[in-house]
């Protein structure tokens, strides 16, 4: 991929920075002057992936827009832990309204910016808009507003921080919860313990089906790739969507120090494909670097502990492996393969 061309013998571009790199090639996070959009003192749990992902993304967007940025937040962990009244951790203009309407509010902010630009005699608004929320506020509750924003092609980047359940209210299942996972509402009992094996709801693919200018997935385990995608998105106009994978130590029952490791394993197993798409077509996938079996990922999380108990459910683990293998085929995640199958919506241009 273009943004990983720097070949560093010692650490490549995999680390956050590197003293040997020229400053212009270093990441935003390596910068001593980074915004720290989400500042210290927030009340997220130890090792919170979402807090990390949000700072990564918003700091990159701040640099890309020359600090002309406003963020609209859906209800959820990110909102609750960052702004217990009257404190705020945000060091950028930030607004929260309801759980389900972040995309709609962002549309409104973008419209207002457009009016202001027109009045000032500018061709384009100077201040850009980001809407952000968790998977609950995005894939369930806010989905109607989100789809509307895509369909109207409003000038908003929507970022979903996917931690795969409603963590803020006590780990209830969302439409982004993986099968077999234990949540407060999908207990590991019966023949099919944990969350059901449904069809799932893949919002990045649904976003692509709207034919919007830019859709990408990213992970807190690959900062360089994440920053590249946010920067690229902020240099485009129209509706854009980035889906960031953010492990949750509390909801997943994982060790707080394993947050990035889990995100890395999700990508390296193939369970979470990292790719980008423009106007409904996949243009790039992040290849798997060191392929891992799904078990390496599942075993670190207590929400899957029932698969490895006294009666191990190897059949369920095998279904996960099938899921990963299907992703690998579909997205061409290994070696130099191209994606094997077309994507829904790729016919729209």
């Amino acid at each position, binding site marked *: 991929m273009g943004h990983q061309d720097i070949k560093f013998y010692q650490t490549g571009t*995999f680390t956050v*920075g590197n003293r040997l790199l020229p400053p212009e090639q270093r990441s935003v996070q390596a910068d001593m002057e980074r915004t720290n959009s989400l500042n*210290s*003192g927030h*009340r997220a749990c*130890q090792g919170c992936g979402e807090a990390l992902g949000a700072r990564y993304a918003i700091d990159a967007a701040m640099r890309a827009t020359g600090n002309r940025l406003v963020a609209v937040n859906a209800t959820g962990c990110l909102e609750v832990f960052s702004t217990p009244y*009257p*404190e705020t951790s945000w060091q950028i203009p930030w607004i929260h309204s309801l759980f389900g309407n972040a995309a709609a509010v962002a549309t409104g902010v973008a419209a207002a910016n457009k009016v202001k630009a027109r009045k000032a005699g500018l061709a384009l608004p100077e201040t850009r808009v980001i809407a952000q929320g968790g998977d609950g506020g995005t894939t369930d509750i806010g989905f109607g507003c989100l789809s509307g924003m895509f369909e109207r092609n409003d000038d908003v980047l929507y970022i979903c921080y996917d931690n795969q359940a409603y963590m803020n209210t006590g780990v209830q299942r969302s439409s982004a919860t993986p099968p077999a996972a234990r949540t407060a509402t999908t207990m590991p009992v019966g023949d099919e313990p944990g969350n059901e094996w449904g069809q799932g709801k893949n919002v990045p693919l649904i976003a692509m089906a709207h034919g919007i200018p830019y859709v990408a997935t990213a992970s807190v385990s690959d*900062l360089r790739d994440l920053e590249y995608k946010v920067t690229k998105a902020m240099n485009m106009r129209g509706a854009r969507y980035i889906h960031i994978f953010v492990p949750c130590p509390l909801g997943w029952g994982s060790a707080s120090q394993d947050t990035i490791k889990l995100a890395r394993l999700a990508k390296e197993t193939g369970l979470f494909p990292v790719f980008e798409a423009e106007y409904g077509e996949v243009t790039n996938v992040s290849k798997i670097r060191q392929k891992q079996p799904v078990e390496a990922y599942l075993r670190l999380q207590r929400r899957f502990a029932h698969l490895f108990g006294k009666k191990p459910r190897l059949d369920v683990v095998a279904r996960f492996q099938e899921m990963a293998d299907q992703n690998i085929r579909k997205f061409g995640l290994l070696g130099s393969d191209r994606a094997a199958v077309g994507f829904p919506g790729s016919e729209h241009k």
Partner: protein
Amino acid sequence: MNKPFAITLQVGSSLANKTGSWRTFRPVYVNRLPPCNNACPAGEDTQGWLFHAESGDYETAWRHLTEANPMPAVMGRVCYHPCEGACNRGKLDDAVGINSVERFLGDEAIKQGWAFSKPAASTGKRVLVVGAGPSGLSAAYQLRRMGHEVVIFEAGPAAGGMMRFGIPKYRLPREVLDAEVQRIVDMGVELRLETKVDNILETMKAEKFDAAFLAVGAHIAKRTAIPATESSRILDAVSVLRSMEGEETPMLGRRVVVYGGGNTAIDVARTAKRLGAEEAIIVYRRTRDKMPAHDFEVEEALQEGVMMRWLSTIKQVGDGGAIQVEKMVLDEAGRPVPTGEFDTLEADSVVLALGQDVDLGLLDGVPGLSFEDGVVQVGDNMMTAYPGIFAGGDMVPSDRTVTVGIGHGKHAARHIDAWLKGTTYDKPAKKEIATFDKLNPWYYTDADKTVRPMLDIIRRQSSFDEVQGGLDESNALFEARRCLSCGNCFECDNCYGVCPDNAVIKLGPGRKFEFNYDYCKGCGVCVEECPCGAIALEPESA
């Protein structure tokens, strides 16, 4: 009330919320001991000097390196690099070519004419060093840096010891050795050649030396009782290699048999080949894997056409060089046992390479000394039982390599310095070793080892040109950058980036990082994601 709409409390920053109070574990920056440093007999801070080489600052790298070892151009050629055997990168792809980078730095220093700085102040103490081999030169260099007046007495016609009279030119070109010796002399070390010390106590008294470091080496070839006729030509390896430095090369003939299995045997056989012998045959009583010689040297000798007779001993040397060889087998313990089967080899000369003994004559009359296996016994501080007389290198119990000798010299110098001041030198406690499990290897890009060029095989069989080439600037930099920096921060910014709580303070280039314990929740992500294992997680005290 002057507050925004619908607000009753003054808006504040979350910085008021000191989340550090949640912590049960705290991350701390540590410096662990890299396995390469731990393995170096000369005590080089390998990772430390590679760090400077990585940024292309070769002079700083060389100065850092030479704090432990004043002869990197020599060591970059002749050291058996135990550092590379211990290198954690070996578990990823291939060990870092530490030895080749060391040679590059050494050669660069000679090319650029970098000199050692002279001592700032003189202590007024005089130290005698006996023997200008690796150990003596190393001790002289270290003692001079500490401000002592140093005089080296060398019995031979030139400095270098076994580096000159033992190691063949094709492994160590003499101009390299000369340059590195000269640099030590230029610091103000007095070198007296062809000055043999017959009685150490008398010499010390005559010239008012406050202490002495003895490093006379082991030059006397061990003999074995092989029945031989008068016409047979039997030589010893030490004399053969030494005479290579003289005007006349030794007469070895067309067929040369070398008896022994150490590095010296290999050196002699390869030298014989270069002198024009059609056949050079090494006769050794055990098998290849039991040979004390390093395997890469055995391999290089075989490439050059040296032949090997494993499991064989020489019983007698008859007229016209007919050598009677007895076949051996190994018993369960791996010891060779004679079989009674004999064989005959034809040879113009037989060279014995059966090890060396030390000439301990200079110690005659020194009271209280103890000797074992032909070497003098020293304490942990390298001092003999006679106060003020220290010894090192091949004349004390050791592995007898150049690197060990350099290490002895450094080690002894520290103790001599302390002894002269009436104190003792306490070695700093060894830090925890940065083992592979302490690293997060995900972050290291694949990069294969740079292989050094080897001289064309035809020239290896006919000339004394150096066999192994060096790296140039571009691939030396590449090789240095393969270092994983085990256990020591190399400022990759990972901890600064991965903290979900923004609780790592970046202090700027070269100044590394600090934790902000007001906000650090102790999640441990920085510890887990530190590529090189330079952060430890410690329990918070109640």
